[in-house]
């Protein structure tokens, strides 16, 4: 089995686990979670976010600025033993630590998020602090393309570039959809890569579901000096055909028995 096929399988497994939780809790953001799932897989399983197995902590930081998709990290935290199995099982009960949106009370979650547009600035602050400590700590800020509508994202990019934060990587999950429809129809964002590159930021564009592509991009990022932005083209709802590229699957929707069966089959 190649590394890429291993990652692919992990992505499917995690999506399946999350699908069952969304179904059980009747809430969540499957479209956005599934869109960034493969980014999370490569970050954690590709060794870009480093893990201290003795202390059971990650030594790098991950800011999920698109906080409605933080749930993508929960099964990964469980897999690494950072999130106790019982907490995963407890998800959906009132006493559960896990929520629709991530917060810092959850093991392995570095930032409380949910409101869009904060992740670049917060990541920049973390990156400056890591440099001040002379620590080899990297910060990965995962933002949605929708966050490019927030002015504070551009403020943060300007800031991070000026401070030459080579220990910060901005990842933009571009699935071309926001709640009301396509970004091209609602309010044009493209060309995203050119706009970010226009700030003087090194920008790489990749297919967000091709693990060779993702792996190469994150490796290239490590070898570069300066701030890097990786524009990751993804499919909203990736993995479940009736959710793919559908803006209404930003949120959980009730499903027929046939749809549930189909999703389970496609994620297996």
């Amino acid at each position, binding site marked *: 089995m190649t590394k890429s096929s291993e990652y692919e399988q992990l992505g499917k497994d995690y999506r399946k686990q999350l699908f069952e939780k969304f179904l059980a809790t009747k809430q969540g953001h499957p479209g956005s979670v599934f869109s960034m799932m493969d980014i999370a897989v490569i970050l954690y399983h590709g060794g870009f976010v480093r893990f201290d197995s003795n202390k059971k902590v990650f030594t790098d930081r991950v800011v999920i600025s698109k906080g409605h998709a933080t749930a993508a990290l929960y099964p990964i935290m469980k897999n690494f033993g950072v999130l106790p199995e019982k907490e995963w099982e407890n998800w959906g009960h009132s006493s559960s630590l896990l929520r629709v949106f991530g917060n810092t009370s959850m093991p392995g979650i570095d930032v409380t998020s949910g409101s869009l547009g904060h992740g670049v600035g917060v990541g920049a602050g973390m990156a400056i602090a890591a440099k*001040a400590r002379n620590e080899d700590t990297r910060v990965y800020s995962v933002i949605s393309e929708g966050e490019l509508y927030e002015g504070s994202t551009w403020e943060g990019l300007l800031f991070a570039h000026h401070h030459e934060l080579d220990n910060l990587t901005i990842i933009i999950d571009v699935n071309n959809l926001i709640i009301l429809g396509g970004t091209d129809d609602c309010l044009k964002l493209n060309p995203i890569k050119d706009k970010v590159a226009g700030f003087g930021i090194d920008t790489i564009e990749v297919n967000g579901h091709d693990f060779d592509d993702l792996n190469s991009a994150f490796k290239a990022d490590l070898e570069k000096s300066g701030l890097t932005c990786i524009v990751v083209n993804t499919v909203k709802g990736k993995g479940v055909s009736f959710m793919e590229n559908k803006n209404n699957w930003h949120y959980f929707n009730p499903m027929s028995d046939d749809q549930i069966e189909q999703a389970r089959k496609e994620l297996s």
Partner: protein
Amino acid sequence: MFQRDIFIKTIMSAMNKDSDIYFLSADFGAPALDELRQKFPDNFIHCGISEQAMIDVATGLALEGKKVFAYAMAPFISLRAIEQAKCGPGLMDLPICLLSVGVGLGYADAGPTHYANEDYACARAIVGTSVYTAADSQTTQQIALELIASPRFAYVRLDREELPDIGEMTLNDVKAGFRVFGESSSNKVGLVSHGFMLHRCLEIQKAHPENFYCIDLIRSKSFPDSLNISAKALLVVDEQTPSGNLAACVFEGLSNKDTFLPIVSKCLPEKYIFDNGGRDKLLEENGLGLSDIREAGERLLN
């Protein structure tokens, strides 16, 4: 010396011993800040004219264990970046001090974009804030010392003007959150205020000590535990618009202690002020002249 310079100088002294203190500015200056930038270039960050990014960056620093002071003009750090304050230091309970300069009509005659007449209600509404307002130099210094000693999410309101010292001030007064001028009595009207307007209240109290005493509410949130009030009534004087100003705070604070006194709010009207003429004139024209306050107090005596 201006309050901002006193505060920054106090921070600078602490920076000599603590490399975890960071000072961020959204392109807002002060003579003392020039010195700080020179002496501590690694701990000063210019965030551009970007109050929102400044508080997000402050959040990232504080998540990594830094103690952060974020500095900007009052109307912008309070209202423009209010959601950043909620989502960063608010939600995650981080040691970030928002240093807000030019509260009230301090920037007269710049006009309403530069006035901070709603900042108090906004800052107080965020869960977890400690809200301080400095009326003089000594208070300013003691507030800075308090936040260095016990870093927390705080909103500190400084005046643009150089205000005269009122009296001896200690760290204990800041810890208590208030100080009283004159003898309190159930036959008198208590004039409650903070910052610039406290000076007007003190002028009235000194002229009529038989009728009035003053309370300087240095830390209005959390409301001082040890503030027990005896008065015929309270006149709360604040250079803010009507909704959610210091009078609301006093009512909430006292009612939580089962103290129910007549409370009257003396504040700016519900409008944006575009007129010129300087702060004193604007206050006179908008119901906060000395005679307006005194007459309002006298009405409560009768």
